[in-house]
């Protein structure tokens, strides 16, 4: 048994090393378009693995990502946009004086984005998880709408529907990829600890979990706040990648895309969430042609924006009907190695 543990550890180290080499290589040699897609993939890996923690690992159906990503994006944007840039941006009304004084470096901005999101998650968790039942989905869905509406209706802070521009483009592959690696390691370390076991126990059988001394309220709250933290950080990275944000960027569609990713990858599997991200974000780029006019057998169809989403929705429906376990089921990459060992015994 000691041997398999160290074998696993070596494999983990090797994979992190590979990911780092890939980041360095692609930053230096890939064209701008590919790097942009990789940045997107890295950010969505952060979001997907953390979304999977509450939805897949803990089994609490939640629709929170767009809300917390929006929070993170706005916090980071407000902290990064320079006072001069703020001066001319606020076109609807003048900003509150404190908005002008907000300033921090990138790391602090990202951390504050995560912490702010996690604290809000804590405030939501307290009432929702006190009672049994599937209230989380409704509450988080409503939360997403409220955040969007607050962003539109408080132009003194957010510049309303115009959003914030001229956010310094601090995000690059080193940041997005590096934080994605950290997020995956942190989430896996949580999953493979007593905290992760408690979360899985809650998913499998809440009564049995309680009977084993698991504080199910604490397990759910921990999962939800951890998800929110990384969604906040991811939102910050996104803001510093896109350089401009506005409320409609963070509508329900954003969450829906992440839902497709984790269901496709296999609810509960962190490896699956990563695979799902690459397939959906990569595939979504590849399927761009679907939204454009097509030339088929000599005919030209008109452009159909949103066609890609139709395809993704069909994939989601197909998975839910015929392949509920997704690509990975609840397994992780390492399970494929340990299960073979079991067969040898």
């Amino acid at each position, binding site marked *: 048994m000691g041997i398999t543990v160290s074998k696993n550890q070596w494999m983990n180290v090797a994979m992190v090393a590979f990911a780092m080499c890939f980041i360095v290589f692609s930053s230096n040699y890939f064209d701008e378009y590919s790097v942009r897609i990789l940045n997107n993939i890295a950010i969505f890996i952060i979001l997907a693995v953390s979304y999977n923690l509450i939805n897949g690992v803990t089994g609490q159906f939640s629709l929170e990502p767009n809300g917390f990503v929006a929070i993170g994006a706005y916090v980071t944007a407000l902290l990064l946009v320079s006072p001069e840039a703020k001066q001319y941006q606020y076109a609807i009304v003048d900003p509150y004086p404190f908005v002008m004084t907000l300033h921090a470096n990138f790391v602090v901005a990202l951390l504050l984005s995560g912490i702010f999101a996690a604290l809000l998650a804590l405030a939501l968790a307290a009432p929702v998880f006190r009672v049994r039942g599937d209230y989380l989905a409704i509450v988080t869905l409503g939360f997403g709408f409220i955040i969007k509406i607050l962003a539109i209706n408080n132009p003194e802070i957010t510049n309303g529907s115009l959003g914030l521009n001229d956010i310094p483009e601090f995000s690059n592959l080193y940041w997005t990829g590096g934080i994605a690696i950290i997020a995956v390691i942190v989430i896996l370390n949580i999953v493979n600890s007593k905290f992760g076991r408690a979360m899985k*126990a809650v998913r499998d059988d809440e009564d049995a979990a309680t009977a084993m001394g698991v*504080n199910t309220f604490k397990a759910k709250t921990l999962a939800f706040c951890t998800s929110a933290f990384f969604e906040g950080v991811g939102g910050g990275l996104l803001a510093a990648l896109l350089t401009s944000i506005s409320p409609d960027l963070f509508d329900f569609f954003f969450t829906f895309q992440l839902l497709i990713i984790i269901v496709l990858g296999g609810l509960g599997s962190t490896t699956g969430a990563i695979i799902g991200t690459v397939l959906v974000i990569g595939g979504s780029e590849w399927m761009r042609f679907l939204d454009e006019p097509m030339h088929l057998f000599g005919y030209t169809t008109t452009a159909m924006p949103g066609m890609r989403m139709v395809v993704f929705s069909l994939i989601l429906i197909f998975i839910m009907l015929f392949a509920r376990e997704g690509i990975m089921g609840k397994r992780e990459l390492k399970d494929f190695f340990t299960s073979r060992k079991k067969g040898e015994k």
Partner: protein
Amino acid sequence: MILKIDNVTKNFGGVTAIKETSFSVAPKEIFGLIGPNGAGKTTMFNIITGNYEPSSGQVIFRGEPMDGLKPHQIVRKGIARTFQNIRLFSSMSVLDNVLIGFDFQARYGFLESIVRFPRFIKEEKRIKVRSMEILDYFGMASFAHEKAVDLSYGQQRKVEIARALATNPELLLLDEPAAGMNPSETEELGVIIKKARNDFDLTVLLIEHDMKFVNQMCDKVLVLDYGKTIFEGKPHEAIQDPEVIAAYLGDFHND
């Protein structure tokens, strides 16, 4: 007395599942809770474990009232249980199922687990070793890495007891541990429960329909019928008690 049930009543809407029941269990006793279907036995377990709140009356464990405690807090006080319908964690390995019982005793924090602090590694190793010991005690060590749901019924029952023991209880509640087992499995289970009682210093409260098993196992029994106590005493006297016989006959009749 390690456990004292003091005049407990439980109503579900119009149904009185438990009516003014009192009994006490002495340390290291194997105490049987028996009675026909629907007598209120499982309900009594759920009251002791904090899953249900009694409509009136009190549960006192080691002299301390358990009023208002949540189930997970009661486990930590030293009361563990198994379920009438086996409820193992289906996506997890046998080892992980047992580890869960140890988890609240593992001394490391959230941040320590994230950075894989030395104490995390030490504690995880400690509870893994302890889990394997318990599995070994039940002859289940070789199944540690199997999915719990892939085991046979009898094996799953053993894992469920092993898992309950991992919480380090003083009082173990077993809800029909022999249900669905064949005679030889039942016999083996009886031996192991008695042995565990001595090795783990346990008090056992068990629900069982198999009267032969009850007779062999229990120092004392309480017979419930429609939530009312109709007999308390030695098991071999219970089977001769006219009221108990009538209750069971009535039960057979209804079946």
